């Protein structure tokens, strides 16, 4: 994070960032080094930490492109995650395939609306919100937006925090597969939807992780260092 925030609402206090000072902190051991790359983009990718041999970057490497790639992958898999059955319940007498949506409908109609709402929010709303929110943040970085930086930062933190809970459904399926295995009486198997669903959750989490929130402030504070390859290069000269 860029700076200790002040209480003033919109105004971003004038601060000097490490990048502006020609410094770069090692993202792995947090050793502060001189940014030897300067304006040279060829050198930018080749700096290593003298202490831990980690790659030195003022911002996360290829943050936006990674975020986009993971977001697109998650969006693609979001379709099979909802269209395909996540759970296949075989009892003595019948076999039933359940998609996430059919499970929600089942709980809703069978008199457990609370559970239906919970699963709906955790399994459908949250992954979708993550996709939309991260996309929105990434787009705003692309557009070099300078307004609403603080709400965007809040939004990102919410996404990051809430994201891990969207695992709930997959977690339940995984638990059931492990527990409900009375051979001959009832067997629960995970369907292709569960894999896709898990992939969506993991991909959105990775996307959130790839996203470097400092980019939100790069534009807002002063000049724009926020391009993926050379976040600081063009300004410093």
């Amino acid at each position: 994070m860029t700076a200790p925030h002040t209480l003033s609402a919109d105004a971003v206090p004038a601060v000097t960032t490490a990048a502006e000072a020609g410094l770069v902190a090692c993202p792995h051991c947090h050793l502060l080094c001189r940014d030897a790359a300067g304006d040279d983009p060829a050198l930018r990718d080749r700096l290593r930490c003298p202490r831990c041999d980690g790659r030195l970057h003022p911002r996360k490497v290829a943050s936006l492109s990674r975020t986009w790639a993971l977001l697109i992958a998650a969006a693609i898999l979001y379709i099979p995650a909802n269209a395909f059955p996540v759970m296949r319940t075989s009892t003595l007498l019948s076999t039933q395939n359940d998609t996430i949506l059919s499970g929600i409908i089942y709980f809703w109609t069978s008199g457990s609306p609370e559970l239906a709402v919970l699963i709906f929010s955790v399994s459908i709303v949250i992954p979708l919100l993550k996709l939309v929110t991260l996309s929105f943040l990434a787009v705003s970085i692309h557009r070099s937006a300078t307004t609403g930086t603080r709400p965007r930062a809040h939004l990102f933190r919410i996404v990051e925090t809430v994201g891990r809970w969207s695992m709930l459904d997959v977690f339940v399926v995984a638990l059931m597969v492990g527990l409900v295995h009375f051979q001959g009486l009832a067997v629960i198997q995970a369907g292709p939807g569960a894999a896709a669903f898990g992939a969506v959750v993991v991909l959105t989490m990775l996307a959130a992780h790839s996203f470097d929130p400092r980019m939100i402030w790069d534009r807002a504070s002063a000049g724009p260092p926020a391009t993926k390859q050379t976040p600081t290069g063009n300004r410093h000269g």
Partner: protein
Amino acid sequence: MADTPPDKNASPNQGAMPEPVVDHGRRWVPSLVWLIPLLAAVIGISLVVKTIWMRGPSITISFVTADGIEPNKTKVKYKDVDIGEVKGVSLTDDHSRVLVSVELTKDAKDFAVDDSRFWVVRPRFAETGVSGLNTLLSGSYIGVDAGHSDSQRKEFTGLEDPPVVASDVPGQRYVLHTDDIGSLAAGSPVFYKRIPVGHVERYTLDEDGRRITLRIFIKAPYDHFITKDSKFWHASGVDVRIDGSGLKVDTESLATILMGGIAFEDPPETPMTPAPAGSEFALAANHIDAMKAPEGYHVAVVMRFHQSIRGLLVGAPVDFRGVEIGNVTSLGIDYDPATQDFTSRVMVNIFPDRLQSFERSLPPESDRAARLERLSQLVAHGLRAQLKTGSILTGQLYVSLDFVKNPQPVQFNPATDPIELPTVPGDLEALYDQVQQIVAKLNKIPFDAIGENARKALASLDTATKHIDDLVQHADHDVLPEIRDSLKEMQQTLASTQASVAPDAPLQQDARQALKGVMDATRSLKALTDSLEREPESLVRGRKD
């Protein structure tokens, strides 16, 4: 993370900062990260493609009711294997039926052909038994009978009842005709030697409403046993018969009591040539009727009996030495004005085919005159009809044809139609006649007179013996010993005669003669003794006159 606040004050001091190491490797990760969405796309597309690929044909089945059918839950099963699922249920436009849309799996696409049959398997309590009990718990499902046609089809009309025989069961179908359906229903078993070998598939009333046509299915390999001579009969329920051979209770199996059934049999000594599928047969009411055939060719014969025909019923057998060769068809009574007498008229049908070897020896059916000539010879040889008692218990009569010994010649005119066969009195009637003759003869014996005579004779004999006693006593003293001896002998004879006469009737003729002699003798003796009393000297001197 990149920020280290404690370093902030020292940040302008660049000289104190550690220099980063310059690596000479090449970065290519950014391009690699785009493999992830590519991979996701491949996975997603492959899933969709696989689903589309695995999706079989969609078909629509119409049923009268959607009872037990739920979208996305009700399965379509063939041999208990899921081959599809109900996706939707809707009504037809006129609301008369329900349309069930079914999505078959890809490997089940062969089921969507012209002659496939679909029905709903649900608990069923029919006369043929209870079925589908497992669906009480698991819910109904749609059963399939796979068709073999090559032409595809999308819309089907569901059966209301499960088909009796799946189409992949090897076997043959045959047609039966009957007047009475009895307790038969679709699914009723068909037995061969009490082994269930097939089923009644369905039955229809003929268009004219007179007869019922049944279609039966016989499983392989039992279909080989159906020959063109096979006889079919109702094996339904319990067959209780009281007939010439007494009380008979017959049932094919316990199951047939409840659900009816059909049995068949091949007449003995017929060639076992399997009948082609679809052959038509008659369904007889019972085993006996079935085995009476062949019905085809018969001769109507009339018989007149001069006796009561009580106990003879229509349908009673005509028997030739134990073989049933015909039936009584009608009974009546005729008045003959010439003799002022009534005769019982019995009409029978005779099936010459049932005497197979005899039938083969006959001239062909067309040559009626020659056949009747043969019959004339048989009648001349002593062929007669006779009423016989089949069962003393029930008094049932039957007509027996046989040759009688020393037949009295009769007039036989084979040209009449129907032919009239001569009759002889039945065995009971003949016995009755004999008894009557004996009684009549017995009546003629004058037992009264015999008894009177015998009494009189015995009375006079009594007197006579007394006289003789006196005489003997008298003669004891005076008369010659020879006379006394002879009188003693006579007394013994008389005593034994008396003993003989008294108890024993059959000796009466001899006794009468003996008595006559004895009376003659006593008369002479009396005369002798009288004269001896008057003139005892005459014994010495002889009689004067």
